[in-house]
């Protein structure tokens, strides 16, 4: 850098009417200069974030990796076992059961949980008078504590006797009563229905915000061209919010792969392991046995899920890069 030059290295300078970037010149590092340029302030600003991330994210992640290579009785110092915990998990017949169940949950959640909030958001956005009220109603299940929501569904809707709400309605048609959560065939779909009800509100609000940002002129132009509602949605709405749709799709897969609350509270993984998911298996490894000797396997399976989801996200982002708006 030329002394007294007011232009900093790396900043664009105008040469012959075109802006070009001056190559960065590596000077000698001077602590005083660094302080004078506000280096200390930058560190001070970053410090709380660094401390919080270290304490609550990076340290637990490191501990998880270490724990996955150890065995412990929670009293004596842990001992190293190499990759044995990973082998134990892969050889456990319940691992494949949990993997299949999680994939089944993700698929059902995708079929119900992905289009329903989108349709609801489109309908709400079309409403002029009560949009606020409809949005609030759609969001209401999200503010109900998850445990309360599960209990509500379990003891009101899914109650297996004839006094359960669903069974009462079916009783009018001389059907049932059915044990919604006690049959291997209906337990998982029952969990997905409640999960969709509980979580759709947030997605509706996000879609609604995206829909509101779509230029109304595009719809007017489509109307002039004679497009009906379906064509407007397909040719205007979806392309305009495709960035949000792709992100929500990815988040949905990540969320459903980590489903725990519903199978834990509704069925504990039953009946006959029909709702045993990967994260519930992690829980069972760690806490299912009073002696807690499965902490290593629990850490190993957690790590496997995390790595799979990281790879999935990278591949998904790479494959959908050309469709994304960002």
């Amino acid at each position, binding site marked *: 850098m030329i002394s007294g030059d007011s232009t900093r290295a790396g900043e664009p300078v105008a040469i012959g009417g075109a802006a070009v970037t001056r190559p960065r010149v590596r000077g000698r590092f001077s602590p005083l200069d660094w302080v004078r340029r506000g280096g200390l302030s930058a560190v001070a600003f970053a410090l709380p974030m660094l401390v919080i991330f270290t304490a609550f994210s990076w340290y637990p992640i490191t501990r998880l990796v270490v724990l996955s290579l150890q065995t412990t009785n929670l009293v004596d110092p842990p001992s190293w076992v190499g990759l044995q915990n990973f082998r134990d998990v892969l050889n456990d017949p319940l691992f494949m059961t949990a993997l299949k169940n999680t994939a089944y949950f993700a698929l059902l959640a995708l079929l119900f949980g992905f289009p329903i909030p989108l349709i609801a958001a489109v309908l709400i956005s079309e409403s002029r008078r009560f949009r606020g009220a409809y949005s609030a109603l759609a969001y209401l299940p999200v503010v109900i504590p998850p445990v309360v929501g599960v209990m509500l569904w379990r003891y009101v809707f899914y109650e*297996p006797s004839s006094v359960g709400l669903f069974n009462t309605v079916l009783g009018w048609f001389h059907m049932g009563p059915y044990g919604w959560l*006690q049959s291997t065939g209906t337990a998982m779909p029952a969990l997905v229905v409640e999960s969709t009800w509980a979580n759709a509100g947030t997605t509706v609000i996000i879609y609604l915000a995206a829909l509101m940002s779509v230029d109304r002129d595009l719809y007017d132009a489509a109307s002039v061209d004679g497009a009906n509602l379906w064509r407007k949605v397909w040719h205007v709405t979806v392309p305009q919010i495709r960035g949000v749709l792709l992100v929500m799709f990815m988040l949905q897969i990540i969320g459903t792969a980590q489903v725990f609350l519903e199978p834990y509270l509704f069925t504990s*993984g039953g009946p*006959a392991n029909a709702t045993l998911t990967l994260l519930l298996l992690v829980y069972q490894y760690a*806490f*299912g*046995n009073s*002696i*807690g*000797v499965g902490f290593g396997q629990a850490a190993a399976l957690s790590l496997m899920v995390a790595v799979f989801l990281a790879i999935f996200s990278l591949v998904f982002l790479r494959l959908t890069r050309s469709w994304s708006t960002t």
Partner: protein
Amino acid sequence: MKSSFRAIRLLVVAAALFLVVGAASLANAGSQAKVTINVAALRPGSSADAQKQFDDNVALFEKQHPNIAVKPVEYAWNGATFAAQLAAGRLPTVFTVPFTDARTLGEHRQVADITAGVKKWAYYKKFQKTIIAEATTSKGRIIGVPYAAYAQALHYNRQLFKQAGLDPNKPPTTWAQLRKYAKQISQRTGAAGYAQMGLNDNTAGWIATTVAYTLGGRMEQGRGANATATLNSPFTVQALNLLKQMRWTDKSMGSTFDYTWPTINQAFAAGKIGMFINGSDIYTFLVQAANLDPKIYGIAPLPLAKQKNAGVMGGGSIAVVRPDTKGAKLNAALQWIDFFYMEKLIKKPAALRDARILVANQQPVGVPAFPIFNKVQYDRANSWIKSYINVPIKQMNPFLKGIFKQNLYPEPAASTQSVYHALDPVVQAVFADKNANVSALLAQANDVAQKAIREGK
């Protein structure tokens, strides 16, 4: 010169005296230093009367042991919570575990070794060998004090029996009779004639094991990691087929099949269940936490098949100390165990004191149990508190008359919880699928249990 020697001698003597007195007073202060122990108290949700009864015991103990402060903490045994509390160092100093888990915890050094302290107690040698064995590791170390034992029993609702046209003083004595009664109760009252725990938190497997025992079956042979799993014996198949018939053919089990320990007790207390299996000592829980109307309560021994090995599975509770407890704190913990759990079983004044506190706080006295020491001592302790017994003892007669004629057997010794956990999905499959292939499912469960036994889990 002489006087200066005398002065020095005086000084030395004075200094020595000062040191001796100082050391003595320090030692005295040390022995009087107050030790605080956290002790497991009542289950969360227990009544105010039950809380007061516990607090009265604490106050009395602190009066008798002025250098020990006792801090009660709400507690209910739970395998999942135990591992988390142990990992976080949040266990109470003294807490209780079921027979099912004590030995496994001891083998993994997850509870304190209290051999030396327990062997000093005068009544140590009076423990029934099979009972103290539940708290003894394979290396002969004592890791807990068994203070309550029970036999699995059939609990029944006398009111539902009457409504169904059955005699509440004549509970079923065979499984065929039980099945018939269940169907009758279900058809005439609309309540579940018979219900069974079915959640895969090891309780489904626990009760399935209990039924298999009554038919002559066992879940394993041998001990430790060399034990052989026998989950798929014809007796377990028979036990599960019996369940299948009641569930699908008789339809006498109501509509709830995912009961666990607290929920089945609560449903029974609420009058929704005619008969169910649980430990003989649950009357206290039913009264304290489930608001049972004592009038409806009945208890009977489990029906036994005419098989050589048919018997009743037993269980019980063991007081243990957290693994890092040492020195004065360990002594204080043992004194609390002796005072709160044991004295009332062996000393008349303590038995009377305990009964008085229980009665004053409207808590049950005389709940059916099984002898920790021997039948003579058990009867003697009950005779001391006869005038305080406030449980409906007449309604408990079928059990009290029948239970001592039955053979009591301990739970599977090796990897107990893992064996039950392997059975859970089989019981659930029977409840969920009327075409469930019991033999095939049990063969799979047997492999799972065998692996757990081999790995010591």
